[in-house]
């Protein structure tokens, strides 16, 4: 594959690298302890010590943003991996078996699509109490029908290929074919979808945290930082702006990366660019 | 139309080398070869549709006008009116959302400024000319509602809409069933005769070319290796590649069994068609030809006239190398 990479792929990759890099860095180093409160230092302006200043409790904003990035990435990664795996499994199953099984799985997926994710998370929190685990479970759950659909659509195309017919002629069953031929050949669209869903998951995690249903204090999260800053909007607008900016950068980065990956893996688009 | 010494090069590959072809009004020329031999590139040269990455040199003249480096704007004036083309895949060449009648009427209204009703009448006449059954009903149908053969007829009608002097048909029957293909070939021949329209028929199928044309070129690796009257070339092929192609095609003589009970085998050309960026030096066919001798690997053979308009580019036939064995069929 030669030629220039699409611009959205490059910008997306840079933004994603930035966010992931910062999140990884927070594991070993932050400028300050993100949870250390020094009331004396509250509402410090940005300076050499507190790069972006401090909040209403005197906590360092940069440190909080970095740890929040890590939390956000972890939630999104776990949720997309769990939801994606289950969704891909259902998609493969639907495609392999066809008939009423396929109809059933896809109709259930349709219902899942119709179900508002936030409502589902609020419901879960009401039952089990708010926690990060519940947020992950809710986001994972809404990912299942998305991946089931993408997987089934791509897999149905691969099932029409001659090499699948050849594998059937060889004597392989539907499950062996799904494992040996279908899965490797639908990896590209599924990975693209995963990247885009990653962005959606970051947004969902921020929304849940904003509502107080995600990460619990003192664990920082962009969404909760945003909601805490809301009441101080006129006194200290920067408290709202920085986490908001982080969400935008992360979501934009993964969306652009997903788009870019789609552009280079979709042969139809490739031909159009040529 | 006259091409002389036309070459098309892409980065690191020669797609067509010094091809000279002249097409008189009403002539029917077949271009035969396997995939990647340059036959489609020759067709695209005739249409001025060589991809932008291709370097075209030589001379392409249409009714005396030099067009080799003419800009797209100039070519567009000639396409449809002087040269038209039909393709292998009739479904891909038709807009699926448009009634086939509208597809044919469009160029008439744009190029010739006809009113809708006149254009419709012309389209109807064209549909009749290309032998579409119940042409009035066909005008209103969509591509998916008619058969592959009928789609190809619609495309022929479209190509004929502006009365071109030359029709280039690139593998027009390959995607069609055998007996449908036959009728399309017969239609092309009939149209060429009734309209005094030149026809360039590009195909890998020797039987189709034999039926459609009276002159033919055989191409290999971007070179024209043999040319002449179709019947003559097919009856007495002189270039080893042409001989190989003819032998490889199953016919009556390959049928049945040898005395020891084994089935008769076909004549084969060993190896595969080399990619254009990896052609052998010297004769393009060296390495696959069974009758090679000293000059073949080094030197590019020049065309040798063989009488009756037939010529072939092979060292075996060149007077310079007389005595180095003989080609089969030359006796």
């Amino acid at each position, binding site marked *: 594959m030669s030629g220039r990479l699409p611009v959205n792929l490059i910008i997306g990759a840079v933004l994603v690298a930035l966010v992931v890099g910062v999140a990884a860095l927070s594991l070993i180093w932050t400028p300050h302890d993100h949870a250390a409160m020094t009331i004396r230092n509250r509402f410090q302006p940005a300076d050499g010590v507190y790069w972006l200043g401090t909040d209403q409790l005197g906590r360092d904003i940069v440190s909080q943003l970095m740890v929040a990035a890590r939390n956000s990435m972890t939630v999104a990664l776990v949720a997309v991996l769990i939801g994606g795996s289950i969704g891909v499994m259902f998609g493969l199953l639907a495609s392999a078996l066809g008939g009423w099984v396929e109809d059933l799985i896809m109709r259930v997926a349709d219902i899942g699509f119709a179900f508002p994710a936030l409502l589902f998370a609020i419901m879960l929190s009401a039952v089990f109490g708010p926690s990060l685990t519940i947020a992950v479970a809710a986001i994972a759950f809404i990912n299942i029908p998305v991946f089931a659909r993408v997987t089934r659509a791509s897999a149905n195309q691969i099932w029409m290929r*001659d090499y699948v017919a050849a594998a059937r002629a060889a*004597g392989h069953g539907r499950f062996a074919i799904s494992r040996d031929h279908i899965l490797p050949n639908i990896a590209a669209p599924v990975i693209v979808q995963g990247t885009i869903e990653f962005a959606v998951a970051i947004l969902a995690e921020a929304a849940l945290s904003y509502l107080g249903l995600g990460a619990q204090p003192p664990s920082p999260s962009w969404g909760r930082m945003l909601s805490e800053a809301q009441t101080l909007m006129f006194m200290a607008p920067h408290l709202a702006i920085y986490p908001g900016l982080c969400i935008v950068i992360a979501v934009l980065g993964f969306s652009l990366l997903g788009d870019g990956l789609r552009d280079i893996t979709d042969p139809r688009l490739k031909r159009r660019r040529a | 139309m006259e091409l002389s010494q036309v070459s098309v090069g892409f980065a690191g590959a020669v797609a067509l080398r010094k091809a000279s072809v002249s097409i008189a009004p009403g002539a029917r020329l077949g271009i035969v070869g396997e995939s990647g031999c340059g036959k489609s590139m020759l067709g695209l040269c005739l249409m001025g549709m060589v991809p932008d990455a291709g370097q075209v040199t030589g001379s392409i003249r249409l009714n005396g006008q030099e067009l080799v480096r003419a800009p797209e704007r100039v070519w567009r004036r000639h396409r449809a009116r002087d040269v038209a083309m039909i393709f292998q895949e009739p479904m891909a060449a038709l807009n699926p959302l448009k009634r086939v009648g509208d597809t044919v009427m469009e160029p008439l209204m744009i190029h010739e400024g006809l009113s809708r009703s006149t254009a419709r009448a012309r389209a109807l006449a064209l549909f009749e000319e290309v032998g579409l059954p119940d042409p009035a009903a066909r005008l209103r149908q969509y591509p998916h509602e008619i058969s592959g053969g009928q789609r190809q007829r619609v495309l022929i009608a479209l190509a004929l809409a502006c009365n071109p002097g030359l029709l280039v048909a690139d593998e027009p029957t390959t995607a069609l069933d055998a007996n449908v293909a036959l009728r399309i070939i017969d239609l092309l021949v009939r149209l060429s005769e009734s309209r005094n329209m030149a026809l360039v028929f590009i195909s890998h199928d020797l039987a189709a070319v034999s039926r459609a044309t009276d002159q033919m070129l055989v191409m290999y690796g971007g070179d024209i290796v043999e040319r002449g009257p179709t019947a003559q070339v097919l009856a007495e092929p002189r270039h080893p590649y042409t001989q190989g192609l003819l032998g490889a095609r199953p*016919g009556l003589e390959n049928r049945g069994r040898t005395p020891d009970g*084994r089935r008769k085998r076909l004549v084969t050309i060993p190896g*595969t068609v080399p990619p254009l960026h990896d052609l052998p030096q010297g004769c393009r066919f060296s390495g696959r030809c069974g009758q090679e001798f000293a000059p073949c690997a080094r030197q590019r053979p020049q065309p040798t006239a063989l009488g009756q308009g037939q010529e072939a580019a092979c060292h075996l036939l060149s007077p310079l190398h007389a005595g180095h064995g003989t080609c089969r069929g030359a006796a």
Partner: protein
Amino acid sequence: MSAPLLQLDGVSRRYRMPRTALLRPPPVLTAVDDVSLTLNAGQTLGIVGESGSGKSTLARMIMAFEAPDEGAVRFQGAGLNRLSGADLRLARRRFQMVFQDPFGSLDPRRRVGWSIAEPLRATGAEDSAARVTQALYQVGLRAGDAQKYPHEFSGGQRQRIAIARAIVTRPALLVADEAVSALDVSVQAQILNLLMDLQEEMGLAMIFISHDLAVVACICDRILVMRNGKSIETGDTGALIAAPRHDYTRSLLVASGIET
């Protein structure tokens, strides 16, 4: 007299088409209509017809990819549609298929050796490395080619690989669906010769499906002509070519250049 290798008795296959109107029953397309044939071990039968004639559907039924709506497909005396999943899997060792498109019939992400060994793994056969190498030699390729990927080969070589995969279990029947149609003429002849070699060496029975009567005639003992799902003419190759009873057969002869 033992049972013939393959026997089709009055096989039909219908497909329901999408509804054209809400209250009318959906139209039915009869892809294969009451076709019977018999093939003995080591024999070659050609099936000729244009696209839509039902020849590929017939192949799919012979391969037990789908079941006939009527009639029965019997292989070595056993009704294929009545076999259990495990028995059918085992039976597949004995009949294999070569597809039309040499670019589509090999998984682009798998090494050639892996693809060739697939029927061995699927049917639980052993000694696969040696069998793969032998199959590669039989189709004129080298042992080292097993480590390569399909995109490293030309169309003709890929078709050789597909044939190697089909013969690796030493089947009794090979179904070739338009196996040479996508190839250049010179390569087509090589593959036809290869199929003749294998057929004679291994005593393979072969069903050779093509739209091209000339190709079928050079490799088959008998020919069955299909049109619109029906078998319209069948007979020994020589007799059928010398004196076709049906006008349609004659037009196929003309189209393939045998007759002018």
